[in-house]
């Protein structure tokens, strides 16, 4: 494998992320993707019939990457559930921190695309809720899974709100707080508070 430039698809992905970051989803046009990538309009149109299809395809790529990252972080971490959960949350926030434009596309702009994409975003939230819900040791009723949904909702809401404001430190700085939220319902106040006291970046 010699050095190679980015593929058409990679160029389109980078352009899409930039354009959505600058003007939002609603201003997105295939023409501007072509201009930004230097590809011809027909080359872009061969890949994607319209801006929505392009957005959806790239969103799905990002989602798949994040899903496997989250899962690997949880599965590969050794230790008790709070430790593994923390690793998963760290992977989630760290991934979003790498590219704030990509994070805004993934978390914020997707809301404007379609009903179907809102459902896809909900599925992504449910994935995090499932990991949080593994903290349940024994269940008396189904309340804990509602709590897991609320915790996952809290994490996403906080991330969305930070991305909209576009200010402040990296999202990873929120790790102790988010772990605290997730651990609290399942392991009680003392173990949760220990998470608050831990630093965000152990390395």
């Amino acid at each position, binding site marked *: 494998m010699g050095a190679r430039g980015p593929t058409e698809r990679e160029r389109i992905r980078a352009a899409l992320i930039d354009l959505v970051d600058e003007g939002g989803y609603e201003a997105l046009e295939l023409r501007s993707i072509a201009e930004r990538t230097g590809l011809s309009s027909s080359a872009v149109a061969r890949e994607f019939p319209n801006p929505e299809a392009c957005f959806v395809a790239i969103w799905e790529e990002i989602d798949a990457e994040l899903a496997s990252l989250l899962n690997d972080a949880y599965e590969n971490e050794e230790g008790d559930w709070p430790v593994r959960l923390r690793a998963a949350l760290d992977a989630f926030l760290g991934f979003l921190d790498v590219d704030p434009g990509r994070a805004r596309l993934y978390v914020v702009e997707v809301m*404007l695309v*379609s009903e179907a994409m809102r459902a896809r975003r*909900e599925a992504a939230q449910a994935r995090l809720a499932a990991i949080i819900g593994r903290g349940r040791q024994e269940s008396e009723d189904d309340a804990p899974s509602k709590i897991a*949904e609320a*915790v996952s909702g809290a994490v996403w809401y906080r991330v969305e709100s930070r991305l909209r404001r576009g200010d402040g430190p990296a999202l990873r700085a929120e790790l102790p707080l988010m772990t605290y939220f997730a651990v*609290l319902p399942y392991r*009680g106040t003392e173990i949760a508070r220990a998470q608050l006291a831990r630093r965000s970046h152990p390395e």
Partner: protein
Amino acid sequence: MRPGAIAHNQRERLLGALATIVGERGYNGTTIELIAETAAVSNRTFYENFSSREDCFAAAYEALDDFLATLVEEAAAGEEEWPAQVAAASRALIAFLASRPALARLYLVESAVVGEALVELRQRSAARLTALLEPGRDDRDLEPARAAAIEEGLVGGILTLLGRRVAAGEAEELERYAPAVIEFALAPYLGADEARAIAVSPAG
């Protein structure tokens, strides 16, 4: 009727019509023609009252939010202790939304779809709810920035949890979620066990 009263009446009808249509079809399925038709006014009358569909939605959201703010404040005012206030406010909010699925959809689900015009209004709405949690800071050594982040997370988690149920067409069943909401809201302050005890204790 005086002309001013008719105009006021038309505006109210348009807001009500928007809420109905959004409840049935979502924001993206709502058109100005449908709103006007449902309100039994002309498109021109619509434009005399609102500059756009977005503008009309924002006005409806704002009116609903004002109503909800009063509702939760009054519910809270009926209790002495802060944890009981949070529980009462949560139950009142949830009971109302369960009784009005179309408004629940407008408030919790569709407002996220509208875009920039709603960002500030949604923030204001969330801030009103976080204000209810602020007394929880007393007697706890939380630095203000951390306390604010906890409050924002709690309100966000609750709105998300309820919104998901409404989006799934289960608004009428929201009251089943009241105990989980109350437990979730109080646990950071009281600990999980005490929060759960208050959440499952009978209302009032």
